[in-house]
Protein backbone atom coordinates (compact mmCIF):
# COMPACT_ATOMS: atom_id res chain seq x y z
CA UNK A 1 0.00 0.00 0.00
CA UNK A 2 1.49 3.26 -1.16
CA UNK A 3 -0.49 5.65 1.05
CA UNK A 4 -3.56 7.84 1.11
CA UNK A 5 -4.52 10.16 -1.73
CA UNK A 6 -6.92 13.04 -2.04
CA UNK A 7 -9.84 12.18 -4.33
CA UNK A 8 -8.57 14.60 -7.00
CA UNK A 9 -5.14 12.97 -6.99
CA UNK A 10 -6.67 9.53 -7.25
CA UNK A 11 -8.84 10.63 -10.18
CA UNK A 12 -5.73 11.95 -11.96
CA UNK A 13 -4.30 8.44 -12.05
CA UNK A 14 -7.20 7.38 -14.26
CA UNK A 15 -6.71 8.25 -17.91
CA UNK A 16 -9.21 8.52 -20.75
CA UNK A 17 -10.36 5.16 -22.04
CA UNK A 18 -9.48 3.34 -18.82
CA UNK A 19 -11.40 0.26 -17.68
CA UNK A 20 -12.77 0.43 -14.14
CA UNK A 21 -14.13 -2.29 -11.92
CA UNK A 22 -16.43 -0.42 -9.54
CA UNK A 23 -17.73 -2.04 -6.35
CA UNK A 24 -21.28 -1.59 -5.13
CA UNK A 25 -24.79 -2.91 -5.62
CA UNK A 26 -27.30 -0.20 -6.47
CA UNK A 27 -24.60 2.19 -5.16
CA UNK A 28 -24.50 0.46 -1.75
CA UNK A 29 -20.77 -0.02 -1.18
CA UNK A 30 -19.68 2.21 -4.08
CA UNK A 31 -16.81 4.70 -3.65
CA UNK A 32 -18.89 7.88 -3.96
CA UNK A 33 -16.16 10.50 -3.33
CA UNK A 34 -13.86 8.88 -5.86
CA UNK A 35 -16.66 8.82 -8.42
CA UNK A 36 -17.38 12.50 -7.72
CA UNK A 37 -13.71 13.30 -8.39
CA UNK A 38 -13.76 11.42 -11.71
CA UNK A 39 -16.90 13.32 -12.71
CA UNK A 40 -15.24 16.62 -11.73
CA UNK A 41 -12.19 15.78 -13.83
CA UNK A 42 -14.38 14.69 -16.76
CA UNK A 43 -12.36 11.59 -17.77
CA UNK A 44 -14.04 10.24 -20.92
CA UNK A 45 -14.50 6.94 -22.77
CA UNK A 46 -14.47 4.82 -19.62
CA UNK A 47 -15.38 1.16 -19.56
CA UNK A 48 -17.32 0.35 -16.39
CA UNK A 49 -17.54 -3.20 -15.06
CA UNK A 50 -19.98 -3.44 -12.18
CA UNK A 51 -23.07 -5.24 -11.01
CA UNK A 52 -25.34 -2.41 -12.15
CA UNK A 53 -25.31 1.29 -13.07
CA UNK A 54 -27.23 2.35 -9.93
CA UNK A 55 -29.63 5.20 -10.55
CA UNK A 56 -29.16 8.81 -11.72
CA UNK A 57 -27.37 10.86 -9.06
CA UNK A 58 -25.91 7.93 -7.14
CA UNK A 59 -22.72 5.89 -7.52
CA UNK A 60 -22.01 4.81 -11.09
CA UNK A 61 -25.17 6.64 -12.16
CA UNK A 62 -23.17 9.88 -11.84
CA UNK A 63 -20.59 8.67 -14.38
CA UNK A 64 -23.38 7.66 -16.77
CA UNK A 65 -25.20 11.00 -16.43
CA UNK A 66 -21.95 12.91 -17.07
CA UNK A 67 -21.50 11.07 -20.39
CA UNK A 68 -18.12 9.64 -19.37
CA UNK A 69 -18.92 5.99 -20.08
CA UNK A 70 -18.43 4.31 -23.45
CA UNK A 71 -18.97 0.68 -22.50
CA UNK A 72 -20.72 -1.06 -19.62
CA UNK A 73 -20.40 -4.69 -18.51
CA UNK A 74 -23.12 -5.29 -15.92
CA UNK A 75 -25.85 -7.70 -14.85
CA UNK A 76 -28.63 -5.14 -14.50
CA UNK A 77 -29.25 -1.63 -15.83
CA UNK A 78 -33.01 -1.59 -15.33
CA UNK A 79 -33.11 0.93 -12.50
CA UNK A 80 -31.13 3.56 -14.41
CA UNK A 81 -33.24 4.85 -17.31
CA UNK A 82 -30.31 7.02 -18.49
CA UNK A 83 -28.15 3.96 -19.17
CA UNK A 84 -30.93 2.45 -21.27
CA UNK A 85 -31.57 5.74 -23.09
CA UNK A 86 -27.88 6.23 -23.89
CA UNK A 87 -27.63 2.64 -25.07
CA UNK A 88 -30.59 3.08 -27.42
CA UNK A 89 -29.13 6.41 -28.64
CA UNK A 90 -25.82 4.65 -29.42
CA UNK A 91 -23.83 6.76 -26.92
CA UNK A 92 -22.70 3.69 -25.02
CA UNK A 93 -22.62 -0.05 -25.50
CA UNK A 94 -23.62 -2.60 -22.92
CA UNK A 95 -22.80 -6.25 -22.33
CA UNK A 96 -25.30 -7.87 -19.98
CA UNK A 97 -23.88 -10.74 -17.93
CA UNK A 98 -25.70 -12.95 -15.40
CA UNK A 99 -24.75 -11.73 -11.94
CA UNK A 100 -23.19 -14.98 -10.75
CA UNK A 101 -21.24 -15.30 -13.99
CA UNK A 102 -20.03 -11.70 -13.73
CA UNK A 103 -18.61 -12.13 -10.25
CA UNK A 104 -16.90 -15.40 -11.21
CA UNK A 105 -15.42 -13.91 -14.39
CA UNK A 106 -13.92 -11.14 -12.26
CA UNK A 107 -12.72 -13.67 -9.69
CA UNK A 108 -11.18 -15.80 -12.45
CA UNK A 109 -9.36 -12.75 -13.81
CA UNK A 110 -8.11 -11.89 -10.35
CA UNK A 111 -6.97 -15.33 -9.27
CA UNK A 112 -5.23 -16.43 -12.45
CA UNK A 113 -7.80 -18.81 -13.86
CA UNK A 114 -8.38 -19.08 -17.58
CA UNK A 115 -12.13 -18.81 -17.41
CA UNK A 116 -15.31 -20.13 -15.88
CA UNK A 117 -17.39 -23.19 -16.78
CA UNK A 118 -20.97 -22.46 -15.78
CA UNK A 119 -24.42 -23.89 -16.48
CA UNK A 120 -25.94 -20.41 -16.21
CA UNK A 121 -26.99 -19.04 -19.59
CA UNK A 122 -27.10 -22.37 -21.46
CA UNK A 123 -30.00 -22.41 -23.89
CA UNK A 124 -30.47 -18.64 -23.64
CA UNK A 125 -29.27 -15.57 -25.55
CA UNK A 126 -26.26 -15.50 -23.21
CA UNK A 127 -24.91 -18.64 -24.88
CA UNK A 128 -24.89 -17.09 -28.35
CA UNK A 129 -21.43 -16.78 -29.85
CA UNK A 130 -19.71 -18.52 -26.94
CA UNK A 131 -17.99 -21.90 -26.83
CA UNK A 132 -19.38 -24.74 -24.74
CA UNK A 133 -17.69 -27.88 -23.51
CA UNK A 134 -19.00 -31.29 -22.50
CA UNK A 135 -17.37 -32.93 -19.50
CA UNK A 136 -18.61 -36.22 -18.04
CA UNK A 137 -21.82 -35.89 -20.02
CA UNK A 138 -22.68 -32.41 -18.75
CA UNK A 139 -22.62 -29.30 -20.91
CA UNK A 140 -20.99 -26.08 -19.69
CA UNK A 141 -20.76 -22.56 -21.04
CA UNK A 142 -17.22 -21.20 -21.21
CA UNK A 143 -16.99 -17.64 -19.92
CA UNK A 144 -13.80 -15.59 -20.16
CA UNK A 145 -11.98 -13.89 -17.26
CA UNK A 146 -12.24 -10.16 -16.62
CA UNK A 147 -9.53 -7.81 -15.37
CA UNK A 148 -9.36 -4.03 -15.58
CA UNK A 149 -6.93 -1.11 -15.36
CA UNK A 150 -8.40 -0.07 -11.99
CA UNK A 151 -10.56 -1.48 -9.23
CA UNK A 152 -12.38 1.23 -7.29
CA UNK A 153 -13.65 -0.11 -3.99
CA UNK A 154 -15.93 1.13 -1.24
CA UNK A 155 -14.96 -0.25 2.19
CA UNK A 156 -16.02 0.19 5.82
CA UNK A 157 -12.65 0.37 7.58
CA UNK A 158 -9.09 0.45 6.31
CA UNK A 159 -5.92 0.35 8.40
CA UNK A 160 -2.52 1.92 7.67
CA UNK A 161 -1.34 -1.05 5.60
CA UNK A 162 -4.51 -1.11 3.51
CA UNK A 163 -6.34 -4.05 5.08
CA UNK A 164 -10.06 -3.62 4.45
CA UNK A 165 -13.27 -4.64 6.16
CA UNK A 166 -16.79 -4.19 4.86
CA UNK A 167 -20.21 -3.57 6.35
CA UNK A 168 -23.18 -5.90 5.71
CA UNK A 169 -24.52 -5.68 2.15
CA UNK A 170 -21.99 -2.98 1.22
CA UNK A 171 -19.54 -5.86 0.73
CA UNK A 172 -20.98 -7.35 -2.51
CA UNK A 173 -18.47 -7.24 -5.42
CA UNK A 174 -15.79 -5.24 -3.57
CA UNK A 175 -13.59 -8.04 -2.16
CA UNK A 176 -13.65 -9.89 -5.50
CA UNK A 177 -12.79 -6.81 -7.55
CA UNK A 178 -9.82 -6.12 -5.26
CA UNK A 179 -8.10 -9.05 -6.97
CA UNK A 180 -8.77 -8.03 -10.56
CA UNK A 181 -7.72 -4.38 -10.87
CA UNK A 182 -4.15 -3.68 -11.99
CA UNK A 183 -4.30 -0.62 -9.69
CA UNK A 184 -6.62 -0.84 -6.68
CA UNK A 185 -7.97 2.29 -5.00
CA UNK A 186 -10.12 1.87 -1.90
CA UNK A 187 -12.35 4.49 -0.34
CA UNK A 188 -12.92 3.48 3.32
CA UNK A 189 -15.42 5.20 5.59
CA UNK A 190 -12.74 5.38 8.26
CA UNK A 191 -9.01 4.69 8.56
CA UNK A 192 -7.95 3.05 11.80
CA UNK A 193 -4.61 2.02 13.37
CA UNK A 194 -3.14 -1.34 12.43
CA UNK A 195 -4.65 -3.98 14.70
CA UNK A 196 -8.08 -2.43 15.02
CA UNK A 197 -9.22 -4.67 12.17
CA UNK A 198 -8.42 -8.08 13.64
CA UNK A 199 -6.64 -10.43 11.22
CA UNK A 200 -9.73 -12.65 11.09
CA UNK A 201 -11.91 -9.64 10.20
CA UNK A 202 -9.75 -8.55 7.24
CA UNK A 203 -11.73 -9.33 4.07
CA UNK A 204 -9.29 -7.74 1.63
CA UNK A 205 -5.61 -8.01 2.58
CA UNK A 206 -3.72 -4.74 2.26
CA UNK A 207 -1.21 -6.30 -0.13
CA UNK A 208 -3.91 -6.02 -2.82
CA UNK A 209 -4.56 -2.32 -2.21
CA UNK A 210 -2.41 0.32 -3.92
CA UNK A 211 -4.01 3.50 -2.63
CA UNK A 212 -6.52 4.59 0.00
CA UNK A 213 -8.61 7.69 -0.28
CA UNK A 214 -7.95 10.12 2.58
CA UNK A 215 -10.71 10.75 5.12
CA UNK A 216 -13.65 12.91 4.16
CA UNK A 217 -13.06 16.40 5.57
Amino acid at each position, binding site marked *: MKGALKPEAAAELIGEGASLLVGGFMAVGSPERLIDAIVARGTKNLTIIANDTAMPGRGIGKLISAGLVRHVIA*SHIGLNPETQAKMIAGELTCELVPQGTLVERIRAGGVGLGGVLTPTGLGT*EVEQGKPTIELDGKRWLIETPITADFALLGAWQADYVGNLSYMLTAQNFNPIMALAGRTVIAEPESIVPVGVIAPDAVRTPGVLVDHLLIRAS
Partner: protein
Amino acid sequence: MDAKERVARRVAREIRPGTLVNLGIGLPSMVANYVPASLGVFFQAENGVIGLGARPPEGMEDRHLTDAGGGFVTAVPGAAAIDSAMSFGLIRGGHLDMTVLGGLQVDAQGRLANWKVPGKMVPGMGGAMDLVTGAARVIVAMQHAAKGQSKIVPRCTLPVTAERRVNLIVTDLAVIEPTDDGLVLKERAPGVTIAEIVDATEAILIVPESVPEMDLAGGMP
Protein backbone atom coordinates in the same frame (compact mmCIF):
# COMPACT_ATOMS: atom_id res chain seq x y z
CA MET B 1 -57.96 -10.31 -0.57
CA ASP B 2 -56.44 -8.89 -3.76
CA ALA B 3 -54.84 -10.96 -6.51
CA LYS B 4 -51.27 -10.40 -5.38
CA GLU B 5 -51.99 -11.30 -1.78
CA ARG B 6 -53.66 -14.51 -2.95
CA VAL B 7 -50.54 -15.49 -4.91
CA ALA B 8 -48.23 -14.60 -2.02
CA ARG B 9 -50.29 -16.57 0.49
CA ARG B 10 -50.39 -19.63 -1.75
CA VAL B 11 -46.65 -19.54 -2.44
CA ALA B 12 -46.03 -19.29 1.31
CA ARG B 13 -47.64 -22.74 1.68
CA GLU B 14 -44.75 -24.18 -0.35
CA ILE B 15 -42.06 -23.03 2.05
CA ARG B 16 -40.63 -25.75 4.28
CA PRO B 17 -39.17 -25.26 7.77
CA GLY B 18 -35.48 -24.52 8.11
CA THR B 19 -34.84 -23.84 4.42
CA LEU B 20 -32.92 -21.16 2.54
CA VAL B 21 -35.21 -19.19 0.23
CA ASN B 22 -34.61 -16.35 -2.23
CA LEU B 23 -37.52 -14.07 -3.08
CA GLY B 24 -37.40 -11.90 -6.19
CA ILE B 25 -38.37 -8.24 -6.06
CA GLY B 26 -42.00 -7.19 -6.50
CA LEU B 27 -44.78 -9.71 -5.92
CA PRO B 28 -42.44 -12.56 -4.76
CA SER B 29 -41.09 -10.41 -1.92
CA MET B 30 -44.64 -10.27 -0.47
CA VAL B 31 -44.43 -14.00 0.30
CA ALA B 32 -42.31 -13.27 3.39
CA ASN B 33 -45.33 -11.54 4.97
CA TYR B 34 -47.10 -14.90 5.22
CA VAL B 35 -44.24 -17.04 6.52
CA PRO B 36 -44.25 -17.20 10.34
CA ALA B 37 -40.89 -16.74 12.10
CA SER B 38 -41.46 -20.10 13.82
CA LEU B 39 -40.67 -21.87 10.52
CA GLY B 40 -37.00 -20.90 10.93
CA VAL B 41 -36.67 -19.99 7.26
CA PHE B 42 -33.66 -17.92 6.18
CA PHE B 43 -34.37 -15.53 3.33
CA GLN B 44 -31.42 -14.67 1.11
CA ALA B 45 -31.01 -11.35 -0.65
CA GLU B 46 -28.49 -12.00 -3.43
CA ASN B 47 -26.72 -8.68 -2.86
CA GLY B 48 -25.25 -10.25 0.24
CA VAL B 49 -27.35 -11.25 3.23
CA ILE B 50 -28.71 -14.54 4.53
CA GLY B 51 -31.40 -13.81 7.10
CA LEU B 52 -33.14 -10.88 5.51
CA GLY B 53 -35.71 -9.29 7.85
CA ALA B 54 -38.57 -6.83 7.50
CA ARG B 55 -38.23 -3.11 6.89
CA PRO B 56 -36.64 -1.29 9.84
CA PRO B 57 -38.58 1.27 11.92
CA GLU B 58 -38.90 4.72 10.37
CA GLY B 59 -35.66 6.64 10.80
CA MET B 60 -33.65 3.53 11.76
CA GLU B 61 -32.65 2.54 8.21
CA ASP B 62 -28.97 1.85 7.54
CA ARG B 63 -27.55 2.42 4.09
CA HIS B 64 -25.28 -0.64 4.46
CA LEU B 65 -28.22 -3.03 4.79
CA THR B 66 -30.48 -3.26 1.75
CA ASP B 67 -32.17 -5.93 -0.34
CA ALA B 68 -31.51 -6.69 -4.00
CA GLY B 69 -33.99 -4.00 -5.02
CA GLY B 70 -32.07 -1.41 -3.01
CA GLY B 71 -34.75 -1.14 -0.31
CA PHE B 72 -33.86 -0.85 3.39
CA VAL B 73 -34.17 -4.11 5.33
CA THR B 74 -33.18 -5.61 8.68
CA ALA B 75 -31.32 -8.82 9.48
CA VAL B 76 -32.69 -11.53 11.77
CA PRO B 77 -30.73 -13.23 14.59
CA GLY B 78 -28.36 -15.71 12.97
CA ALA B 79 -27.97 -13.63 9.82
CA ALA B 80 -24.75 -13.68 7.79
CA ALA B 81 -23.29 -10.99 5.52
CA ILE B 82 -21.61 -12.46 2.44
CA ASP B 83 -19.91 -11.26 -0.73
CA SER B 84 -21.31 -11.74 -4.23
CA ALA B 85 -19.18 -14.80 -5.03
CA MET B 86 -20.45 -16.60 -1.90
CA SER B 87 -23.98 -15.43 -2.62
CA PHE B 88 -24.00 -16.87 -6.13
CA GLY B 89 -21.98 -19.87 -5.05
CA LEU B 90 -24.91 -20.71 -2.78
CA ILE B 91 -27.37 -20.14 -5.61
CA ARG B 92 -25.56 -21.94 -8.41
CA GLY B 93 -24.07 -24.61 -6.19
CA GLY B 94 -27.39 -26.14 -5.20
CA HIS B 95 -27.43 -24.78 -1.64
CA LEU B 96 -30.54 -22.68 -2.18
CA ASP B 97 -33.69 -24.68 -1.42
CA MET B 98 -36.14 -22.46 -3.25
CA THR B 99 -36.43 -19.31 -5.32
CA VAL B 100 -39.63 -17.43 -6.04
CA LEU B 101 -39.49 -15.25 -9.14
CA GLY B 102 -41.84 -13.09 -11.15
CA GLY B 103 -42.51 -13.99 -14.77
CA LEU B 104 -43.37 -12.42 -18.11
CA GLN B 105 -44.14 -15.79 -19.73
CA VAL B 106 -43.99 -19.48 -18.86
CA ASP B 107 -44.43 -22.00 -21.65
CA ALA B 108 -45.77 -25.55 -22.01
CA GLN B 109 -42.28 -26.94 -21.40
CA GLY B 110 -42.15 -25.02 -18.12
CA ARG B 111 -39.54 -22.59 -19.35
CA LEU B 112 -39.57 -19.11 -17.81
CA ALA B 113 -39.00 -15.79 -19.60
CA ASN B 114 -38.58 -12.86 -17.24
CA TRP B 115 -35.62 -10.68 -18.19
CA LYS B 116 -36.12 -8.96 -21.52
CA VAL B 117 -38.75 -7.64 -23.91
CA PRO B 118 -36.75 -7.08 -27.12
CA GLY B 119 -37.00 -3.52 -28.37
CA LYS B 120 -38.95 -2.38 -25.34
CA MET B 121 -37.33 -3.27 -22.06
CA VAL B 122 -33.77 -4.45 -21.56
CA PRO B 123 -33.19 -4.27 -17.82
CA GLY B 124 -30.73 -7.16 -17.73
CA MET B 125 -31.06 -10.53 -16.08
CA GLY B 126 -29.45 -9.59 -12.78
CA GLY B 127 -29.42 -12.80 -10.75
CA ALA B 128 -32.42 -14.44 -12.42
CA MET B 129 -30.51 -16.79 -14.75
CA ASP B 130 -28.35 -18.12 -11.92
CA LEU B 131 -31.40 -18.50 -9.65
CA VAL B 132 -33.43 -20.47 -12.19
CA THR B 133 -30.43 -22.60 -13.11
CA GLY B 134 -29.26 -23.37 -9.60
CA ALA B 135 -32.10 -23.34 -7.07
CA ALA B 136 -33.39 -26.74 -5.94
CA ARG B 137 -36.97 -25.56 -6.51
CA VAL B 138 -38.13 -22.70 -8.75
CA ILE B 139 -41.58 -21.21 -8.23
CA VAL B 140 -42.96 -18.59 -10.57
CA ALA B 141 -45.37 -16.18 -8.86
CA MET B 142 -47.23 -13.96 -11.28
CA GLN B 143 -50.55 -12.68 -12.54
CA HIS B 144 -52.19 -15.20 -14.87
CA ALA B 145 -52.59 -12.60 -17.62
CA ALA B 146 -51.27 -9.13 -18.44
CA LYS B 147 -53.19 -6.62 -20.56
CA GLY B 148 -55.64 -9.34 -21.50
CA GLN B 149 -52.85 -11.63 -22.74
CA SER B 150 -52.23 -15.01 -21.15
CA LYS B 151 -48.75 -15.25 -19.66
CA ILE B 152 -48.88 -19.04 -19.86
CA VAL B 153 -48.14 -19.78 -23.50
CA PRO B 154 -47.45 -22.77 -25.77
CA ARG B 155 -43.91 -21.53 -26.43
CA CYS B 156 -42.13 -18.47 -25.02
CA THR B 157 -41.95 -15.65 -27.57
CA LEU B 158 -39.69 -13.70 -25.21
CA PRO B 159 -36.05 -14.72 -24.55
CA VAL B 160 -36.00 -17.46 -21.90
CA THR B 161 -34.18 -17.12 -18.60
CA ALA B 162 -32.92 -20.71 -18.54
CA GLU B 163 -33.57 -24.02 -20.28
CA ARG B 164 -34.53 -25.59 -16.95
CA ARG B 165 -38.18 -26.49 -16.29
CA VAL B 166 -39.62 -24.54 -13.35
CA ASN B 167 -41.29 -26.57 -10.58
CA LEU B 168 -44.51 -24.67 -10.00
CA ILE B 169 -46.50 -21.71 -11.34
CA VAL B 170 -48.73 -19.86 -8.90
CA THR B 171 -51.06 -17.20 -10.30
CA ASP B 172 -54.11 -15.29 -9.08
CA LEU B 173 -56.28 -17.94 -10.81
CA ALA B 174 -54.47 -21.25 -10.48
CA VAL B 175 -51.59 -23.45 -9.38
CA ILE B 176 -50.01 -25.21 -12.34
CA GLU B 177 -47.24 -27.82 -12.36
CA PRO B 178 -45.09 -28.29 -15.46
CA THR B 179 -44.43 -32.02 -16.02
CA ASP B 180 -43.02 -34.32 -18.72
CA ASP B 181 -46.54 -34.57 -20.16
CA GLY B 182 -47.27 -30.84 -20.06
CA LEU B 183 -48.84 -28.29 -17.74
CA VAL B 184 -51.06 -29.88 -15.09
CA LEU B 185 -53.74 -27.80 -13.40
CA LYS B 186 -53.31 -28.59 -9.70
CA GLU B 187 -55.49 -26.03 -7.90
CA ARG B 188 -57.89 -23.20 -8.64
CA ALA B 189 -58.39 -19.94 -6.77
CA PRO B 190 -61.53 -19.69 -4.60
CA GLY B 191 -64.58 -18.96 -6.74
CA VAL B 192 -62.75 -19.57 -10.05
CA THR B 193 -64.00 -22.39 -12.30
CA ILE B 194 -61.85 -24.76 -14.33
CA ALA B 195 -63.45 -23.41 -17.52
CA GLU B 196 -62.43 -19.87 -16.59
CA ILE B 197 -58.83 -20.97 -16.03
CA VAL B 198 -58.69 -22.91 -19.31
CA ASP B 199 -60.15 -19.88 -21.12
CA ALA B 200 -57.54 -17.57 -19.60
CA THR B 201 -54.64 -19.89 -20.51
CA GLU B 202 -53.15 -19.89 -24.00
CA ALA B 203 -51.18 -23.10 -23.43
CA ILE B 204 -52.93 -26.46 -23.21
CA LEU B 205 -53.68 -27.53 -19.63
CA ILE B 206 -53.99 -31.10 -18.43
CA VAL B 207 -57.02 -31.11 -16.14
CA PRO B 208 -57.23 -33.96 -13.62
CA GLU B 209 -60.57 -35.21 -12.28
CA SER B 210 -60.15 -33.33 -9.05
CA VAL B 211 -58.86 -29.74 -8.93
CA PRO B 212 -59.15 -28.51 -5.35
CA GLU B 213 -59.27 -24.88 -4.24
CA MET B 214 -56.02 -23.21 -3.20
CA ASP B 215 -55.20 -23.14 0.49
CA LEU B 216 -54.63 -19.49 1.33
CA ALA B 217 -53.83 -19.85 5.03
CA GLY B 218 -50.21 -18.78 4.45
CA GLY B 219 -47.07 -20.59 5.58
CA MET B 220 -47.13 -23.69 7.80
CA PRO B 221 -48.26 -24.66 10.40
